[in-house]
């Protein structure tokens, strides 16, 4: 199911997006795979390639590396990139960040709400939930379909403020990347967005 879609994304990616983001690597979701200084992250992290070098230097001529480690050793990134290691269940999410609450503002609403982005697995789930929360509005969904609300005929564009302080359209980047970088959400009245000329729909579908 999701692996097939991941494959399709790789093949059709044309927007210069970092499709390595969908590769299985050992980094936490949303973390950059390769850092600007060419691989060595902050601090003195001994990646697998260094461990491997140590091994080869010892009197252990018979040590053979498993394929996955051979691949990891070739990688320029010092951080390990071994699939399925360590053997912990992937979605158990026992990690440090267990929730991510962000404020949600809707143009015209008297108060803000908060949502936990970790509660969702995809854009579709988030937008559906926002629609539930602000039930008298409709949100122009990520597929750019028009859903006009019966009551007051207003529709909204979902936008968010990212780590750099810029206001972005929801849906362009992979879901996990979005969760990492989103600081707050704003549902902007579509009428304000007129003139921005959105020709292409955001890249990521609900399977992300």
């Amino acid at each position: 199911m999701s692996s097939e879609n991941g494959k399709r994304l790789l093949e059709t990616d044309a927007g210069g997006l970092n499709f390595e983001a969908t590769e299985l690597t050992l980094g936490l979701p949303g973390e950059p795979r390769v850092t600007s200084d060419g691989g060595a992250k902050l601090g003195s992290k001994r990646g697998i390639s260094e461990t491997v070098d140590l091994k080869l230097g010892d009197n252990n001529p018979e040590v053979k590396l498993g394929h996955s480690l051979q691949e990891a050793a070739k990688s320029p990134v010092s951080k390990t990139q071994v699939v399925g290691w360590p053997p912990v269940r992937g979605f158990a999410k026992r990690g440090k960040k267990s929730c991510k609450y962000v404020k949600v503002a809707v143009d015209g609403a008297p108060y803000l709400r908060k949502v936990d982005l970790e509660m969702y697995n995809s854009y579709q789930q988030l937008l559906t939930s926002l629609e539930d929360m602000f039930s008298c509005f409709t949100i122009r969904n990520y597929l750019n379909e028009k859903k006009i609300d019966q009551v007051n005929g207003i529709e909204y564009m979902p936008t968010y403020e990212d780590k750099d302080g810029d206001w972005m359209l929801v849906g362009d980047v992979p879901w996990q990347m979005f969760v990492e970088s989103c600081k707050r959400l704003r549902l902007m009245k579509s009428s304000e967005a007129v003139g921005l000329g959105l020709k292409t729909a955001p890249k990521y579908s609900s399977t992300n």
Partner: protein
Amino acid sequence: MNYFPDEVLEHVFDFITSHKDRNSVSLVCKSWYKIERYSRQRVFIGNCYSISPERLIARFPGLKSLTLKGKPHFADFNLVPHDWGGFVYPWIKALAKSRIGLEELRLKRMVVSDESLELLSKSFVNFKSLVLVSCEGFTTDGLAAIAANCRFLRELDLQENEVDDHRGHWLSCFPESCTSLISLNFACLRGEVNLGALERLVSRSPNLKSLRLNRAVPLDTLQKLLMRAPQLVDLGIGSYVHDPFSEAYNKLKIAIQRCKSIRSLSGFLEVAPHCMSAIYPICGNLTFLNLSYAPGLHGNKLMKLIQHCRKLQRLWILDCIGDKGLGVVALTCKELQELRVFPSDPFEAENAAVTEEGLVLVSAGCPKLNSLLYFCQQMTNAALITVAKNCPNFIRFRLCILDPMKPDPVTNQPLDEGFGAIVQSCKGLKRLSLSGHLTDQVFLYIGMYAEQLEMLSIAFAANSDKGMLYVLNGCKKLRKLEIRDCPFGDAALLEDVGKYETMRSLWMSSCEVTLGGCKSVAEKMPSLNVEIIDESEQMEFNLDDKQKVDKMYLYRTLVGHRKDAPEYVWIL
């Protein structure tokens, strides 16, 4: 041979409950086989592809409880593609068509669709218990069907499943007439639940003994639930975040104190560490404590909590407890039998906060320790030898040093001697997982000493085929062998293919076995399914026998090749 009438034998067999024993009984003679099969109510199938539902139904017409396992264990670590298999629908469909009065279904690592759940809920009038562990493929709509249609439901236990949460009102689907619940566990669901419906459900379930909530259940609801169910034995707390000076917190303290029967506590999916004192009154009775989902709990708050838990038998914790914290466990929890220490930061080996020291402390302080799962930064031979001496009763010993192939940091030696000491000392060892730098030598020890070993997991170890051969030749009771990234090739694989018929399954990935070697096994052993899993589409274009196989999974079966394999699985 038969001095007694069938009814007497049947009565005697009623006392034989373990699957192994009942299987043995059925092999004695034809009449025992017949009596046993008609009286059998509980069946365990460790590999859903080893037998077909039709044959199961034909042999055990009195079946009431079925346990099925699907995907291989390494599927937990993303080594098996999602749609590899393990679909439960054909089983439910066949059972529904038959006259089997199914009451209990327990599934592990299977693909469960909403359709299956709906069919299940409508087909068995007396259905009582559904346990799903590490399954996927269903949504809360499927749960709604179970809630709505299973009139005598006693148990709905969802453990670590991937559920698409539609935030529907599945909890509201339990009818008012449903008062039979004993166990309800929905901790793995990520979405909101109807809190009012939950409260009403708990209120009308006087037999409720086990309740595990998800993150969406806030503290004030927890307090109300506890007031209505002071008889709980097992509690999983969802959200535990609140202001310690609030009315809600005071109410909670009172509610918890009324729950004198709680023996098992888990969850804390969201936790405010400064509020743990409300839990202290029940800590003295706890036999099981699971804090492995609570990274917010560490340091002194965690220590204080543990110090109240003197009767603990099983502890699941994150490594932020540290070696010092494990020292506190060693001093406090003298009844401890099972310890699991999970990594809070799995992909940064340097941040793993426990080392060999913590393990040694626990082994010294907790002589009853028999089951271990330990993710750590490093391990030494000396520590393992000490642990082996302190705790000769290990049944399960699973050690994961986060940095693969890491040697003993003090001596720079492989960990052969340390693990060797474990297998030599722990004569009852049934399950073993290895890690760190290991040569063929450790496998020599395993083959020599691990006589009761049933399951072995190996990664990034050994120098040659000899390693695998030592294990296959020595471990007579071996049932499951899973290997990744080891230099084992065709010579090891083909040495004794008959052995695989005595085992449930063998997994080998990123090893040295070739397509030709796998084909050879398949040819010689028609009673095995030999599956090659290759998503890279290499196999389609390059059928060279000398090519190395990325993932091979073989298992014994009575029903030949399965028909539901996806295109990247080749069954030889």
